[in-house]
């Protein structure tokens, strides 16, 4: 404000545009004097050492703790308790970028000494380590460990078959940890007519799926919930270059509408079968094909996505030990209904194909799934206090399973560095074996504090 006052005094003091002082605002610095058109500005941005090296360092330190809202004898009472240090380094050059993002973790709940970079277990989780470059004007390549996302759903994924970390999601880590990294090469071809993304992962990577180590779940084989007492024995296909994954996306934007077609060849990302002799959880082969559309509709954003899941190892649906093929469908709409208040709703359908064969081959004594699983989701987001406070409630509800999952959270930015958050993951349902209800004993509340730099 001193600045404004000064300029006012200066301008009036020298009698310049005297009338203006009476009739309107003072002229800002730089107006009213004789113009010097075309003269370049000599201002050179001060660049610090990191900038000169084009090295960009950022990160955060975070403490996060949470407890179950009810006792679960199969799991620890603490749902989460960790200190995380994320370091992010970027090196920029005109035609390429290198990126390294690594998390160092002190985890009091799941104390693992050995680092497993595939599963993100232990004290190190390597999130991103890649190089991307413009191979030609129309071809971008990204090689290495990367986070990959596409598709239109809000926390629902049909054609995005890149690995997810459901444990992180359910125990209340920041939502960025829902995406687990892929070790892949991604080529993107851009033309005037259509663009193509092609992702090759030389070795299949499953989701960081619910295996009982942190989240108890319904164990159909035992007919009860199990957790740390019965660890899942997975049989993950992981032969390099033999058990690999391909993912394609053809996409273009037409008059503001985003159109995409997808294809995937690989394996079910979370266990979708059981080896009847060993009891191991299996990841049968999966092909998927789909399409999506997203764009403005009325005053909001509408999206639609569908996918055909072709369960390759059991195309007729006769093998009870392998998940059947499915049709998946998603419709969504989001709108800012009042200032800083956004509402988003989605409808999601999973339809089992070959349902007759499923019924016919279904072993007795095991819960039978419905042909259709319907979900509706509702996201309410309210921004308050100059958008520094974000109140959010995301609700999944299944009318067919009669269960629900609620994600309330309140997040406050104290200043440019500190963010505090409290939230919950609340599961409920009529039966014990349905998708969300099985996690009922894992309902939790968490709090976190993060310093970003």
């Amino acid at each position, binding site marked *: 404000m001193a*600045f*404004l006052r000064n*300029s006012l005094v200066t301008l009036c003091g020298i009698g310049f*545009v005297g*009338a*203006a002082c009476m*009739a*309107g*605002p003072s*002229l*800002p*610095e*730089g*107006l*009213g004097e*004789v*113009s*010097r*058109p*075309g*003269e*370049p*500005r000599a201002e050179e*941005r001060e660049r610090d050492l990191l900038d000169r090296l084009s090295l960009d360092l950022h990160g*955060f330190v975070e403490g996060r703790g949470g407890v179950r809202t009810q006792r679960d004898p199969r799991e620890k009472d603490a749902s989460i308790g960790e200190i995380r240090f994320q370091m992010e380094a*970027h090196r920029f*050059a*005109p035609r390429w*970028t290198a990126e390294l993002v690594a998390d160092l973790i002190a985890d009091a709940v799941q104390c693992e000494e050995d680092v497993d970079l595939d599963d993100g277990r232990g004290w190190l989780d390597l999130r991103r380590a890649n190089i*991307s470059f413009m191979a030609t004007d129309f071809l*971008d390549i990204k090689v290495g460990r990367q*986070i*990959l*996302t596409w598709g*239109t759903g809000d926390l629902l994924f049909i054609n995005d078959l890149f690995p997810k970390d459901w444990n992180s999601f359910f125990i209340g880590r920041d*939502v*960025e940890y*829902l*995406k687990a990294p892929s070790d892949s090469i991604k080529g*993107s071809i*851009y033309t005037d007519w259509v663009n193509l993304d092609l992702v090759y992962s030389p070795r299949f990577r499953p989701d960081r799926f619910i295996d009982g180590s942190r989240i108890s779940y319904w164990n159909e084989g035992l007919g009860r919930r199990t957790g740390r007492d019965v660890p899942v024995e997975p049989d993950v296909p992981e032969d390099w270059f033999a058990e690999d994954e391909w993912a394609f996306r053809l*996409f273009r*934007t037409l008059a*503001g509408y*985003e159109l995409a077609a997808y294809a995937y060849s690989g394996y079910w990302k979370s266990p979708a079968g059981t080896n009847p002799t060993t009891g191991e959880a299996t990841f049968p082969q999966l092909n998927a094909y789909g399409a999506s559309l997203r764009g*403005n509709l009325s*005053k909001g*954003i509408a999206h639609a996505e569908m996918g055909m899941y072709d369960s390759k190892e059991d195309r007729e649906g006769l093998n009870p030990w392998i998940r059947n093929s499915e049709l998946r469908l998603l419709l969504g709409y*989001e*709108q*800012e209904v009042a*200032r*800083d208040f956004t509402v988003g709703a989605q409808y999601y359908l999973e339809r089992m194909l070959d349902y007759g064969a499923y019924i016919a081959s279904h072993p007795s004594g095991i819960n039978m799934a419905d042909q259709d699983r319907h979900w509706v989701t509702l996201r309410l987001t309210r921004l308050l206090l*100059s958008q*520094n406070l974000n109140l959010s409630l995301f609700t999944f509800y299944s009318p067919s399973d009669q269960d629900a999952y609620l994600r309330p959270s309140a997040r406050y*930015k104290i*200043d*440019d560095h500190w*963010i505090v958050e409290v939230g919950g993951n609340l599961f409920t349902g009529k039966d014990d074996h349905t998708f969300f209800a099985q996690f009922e004993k894992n309902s939790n509340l968490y709090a976190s504090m993060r310093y*970003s730099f």
Partner: protein
Amino acid sequence: MNQRILWGMLYWMLASGISSPAWSQDLSVEEIVERSNRVAYYQGASGRSQISMVIRDKQGQERTREFTILRWNAPGEVEGMDPCGDQKFYVYFQRPADVNKMAFLVWKHLKKEDDRWLYLPALDLVKRISSADKRTSFAGSDFFYEDVSGRNIEEDVHELLETNETFYVLKNTPKDPAGVEFSYYKMWVHKDTFVTVQVEFFDKKGDLYRQYNATKVEDVQGFKTVTQASMKDLRTGGETINEYRDVQYDIEIPEDIFTERYLRRAPTRYLR
């Protein structure tokens, strides 16, 4: 006066967007609005600017935002004319740290809803953002989206209240009062340069509640450019001060920078 005419002609040659002061005596209100809009949002065929925002609340607590804006104007139908039409914006955030490397893309349309996307690098997520309400805070500041990308001049009825030595004083009344929070706003447009020096927004009761001031203007490539501006919210007592550095016009940026490709892979060449 001769010198002013000379400068004016030079301006005209250098940039058709800048008008000559000598000819500005008998302009219609539409011409004044059009020229001030051009100076505020459309100079050059494209542009870039590094923006530092300081958001200060009533208690004096400060928050900062730093980002780069790239702008591209859709070419006009008439060769050589730079129209005040549709535009594309690319906003790349650097600070605060929690929004570092987020990118925001806007396709501004005058005749339909804007298209907006936000890229979240940690999730590699390209999110579509609803754009119905352009009068919401931009990045938590006292500036609105519409202050940053420009309000469509067709949405208001313009009156010339006064012409004095220095300013055209305009009153702008929305054609759709239900769609906005103000009943009208007054603009002080500098007569020689068409720089908008002050804007006062009046609420439905007729009280002044929001005020914009251009506080520093510089010449950049022949374009009068606001390099410091403030927006005060008189109700909350908050104020945001924007500083625009490294301003460049006609940066020869291709239109395809404003696509998903460069949301996912920041166009560093144009950002640095």
